[in-house]
């Protein structure tokens, strides 16, 4: 069973400046006068979405549209300000290549923590260690500190880790890619096999070709709101038309930032 449901979900966050981050200044301000206005960013507004098992969801939108925020909400890193988020099934979030890898330790030593963070048991960790050693082709570097790795080697290790733990719901930001030509082919095969085991994939990317081939549905978000959602081909061409027309500069938008009453 895997399902994601977002009901009327909104996410606002305050912009904390230096004074807001100081306990001394905050207390002093309290004594002088009441709380002052603070800028509030409305990152997501009234989002209603349902993802069912088998769906491959692509998120598109210009920079700052709210894609990454939405991924972080689904991944459980951030919590909605209002509305509801229901996830059924195990959620794994891979937002960048860091994965909990500590550059001071070797590749071999960096398998267990990322795997455990994704919820692996001891047998899975042992299997992944052999699997990733073979896949990432690090040779002797596998036992050297990760800070000695080239970018490509680091990416292969991260990619190997990211694709070794099947889950119900996978949340991905941008795409895991890198390496030489030989590796790209190998990576694609591994990724395809891996994704087949995942029930729901939610992927944010600027690579429209990728979204068109991988996804079963594309959700277009702009200014914190859903513009449209539907089959990849139709949504992506509508999006491209909008981008060519200059990002809809003439349209009237709801303000992204407002002044909030003091907390």
């Amino acid at each position, binding site marked *: 069973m895997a399902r994601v449901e977002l009901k009327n979900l909104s996410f606002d*966050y*305050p912009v*904390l400046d230096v004074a807001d*981050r*100081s*306990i*001394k200044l*905050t207390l002093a301000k309290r004594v002088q006068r009441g709380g002052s206005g603070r800028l509030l960013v409305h990152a997501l507004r009234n989002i209603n979405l349902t993802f069912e098992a088998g769906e491959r969801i692509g998120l598109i939108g210009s920079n700052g549209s709210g894609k990454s925020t939405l991924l*972080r909400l689904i*991944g*459980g*890193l*951030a*919590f909605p300000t209002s509305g509801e988020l*229901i*996830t059924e099934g195990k959620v794994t*979030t891979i*937002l*960048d290549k*860091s*994965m*909990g890898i*500590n550059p*001071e*330790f070797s590749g071999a030593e960096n398998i*267990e*923590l990322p795997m*455990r*963070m994704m*919820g692996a048991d001891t047998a899975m960790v042992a299997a992944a260690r052999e699997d990733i050693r073979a896949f990432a082709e690090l040779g002797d570097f596998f036992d050297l500190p990760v800070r000695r790795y080239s970018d490509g080697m680091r990416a292969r290790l991260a990619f190997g880790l990211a694709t070794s733990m099947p889950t119900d719901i996978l949340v991905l930001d941008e795409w895991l890619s890198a390496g030489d030509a030989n590796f790209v082919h190998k990576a694609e095969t591994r990724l395809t096999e891996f994704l087949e085991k995942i029930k729901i994939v939610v992927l944010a990317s600027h690579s429209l070709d990728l979204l068109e081939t991988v996804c079963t549905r594309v959700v277009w978000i702009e200014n914190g709101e859903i513009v449209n959602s539907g089959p990849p081909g139709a949504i992506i061409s509508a999006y491209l038309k909008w981008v060519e027309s200059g990002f809809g500069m003439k349209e009237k938008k709801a303000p992204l930032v407002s002044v909030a009453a003091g907390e």
Partner: protein
Amino acid sequence: MSTVWSDYGDLLDRWRVWWIMGMQDVRLRYRRSVLGPFWISMSLAAMVIGISLMYSQIFDIGFTTYLAYLACGFLCWNFISAMVIEGGQVLVDAEQILKTASLSIPVLVARMVQRNVTIFMHNLLVIAVVLMFAGIRPEPALLFLPVGLLIVILAGFGFATILGPLCLRFRDAGQLVTSFTQILFFVTPILWMPSQGRLDSVWIDINPVYHLIEMIRSPLLGEMPALKNILFALGTTAAALVAGWASVAYARRKIYIWL
């Protein structure tokens, strides 16, 4: 759906995560020293012996008596103060990880406690040698040590669950915690003995760190902690855990916004 209960449940469900993180921290800290773990402990022993040579004369207390008292006091103080100061940094230090992975506050606190318990155990071995040199032999009261240690560990956990979110929200709070801890060192009986001063004992009694230190120091020196110490220490621990719970409940949904 995750709740404050499941955040604390992660301590059991995801114990490997905090365990591995804590062990990695310890390994990194000891990495560049030749003698490994014991280098830091050796410098603790050297400092304790040095201060004892001087202060046993100033206070006119027998050298070995003072040495044993100071060694155990420092051992406990280093442990407790590290959990308070580093407790404020548990979330700040994990900022990068928290931007990309979902880890609950108790897991990150447990990582810090695990790291400091490991360092405490190393220090304890070296201090045990110092105690033998000072002629202190294990007494039955030593059996209280695991209980006392557990009380202190839980208190440290409680402090960190209070301070971690606070120091993430307010970036200057960590410095306040450090300054406050420095003052606490001088008003707590570590260098001096409570029986020694002319200070009204109420100033010692209201100091929770004193009672916590006694949970470990007394059994090491061969005495059971006084009932008063045990009750105050238990009270402090319970209060810290309850306040920490409230802090986690309040902060857990805001952590991402505070990063």
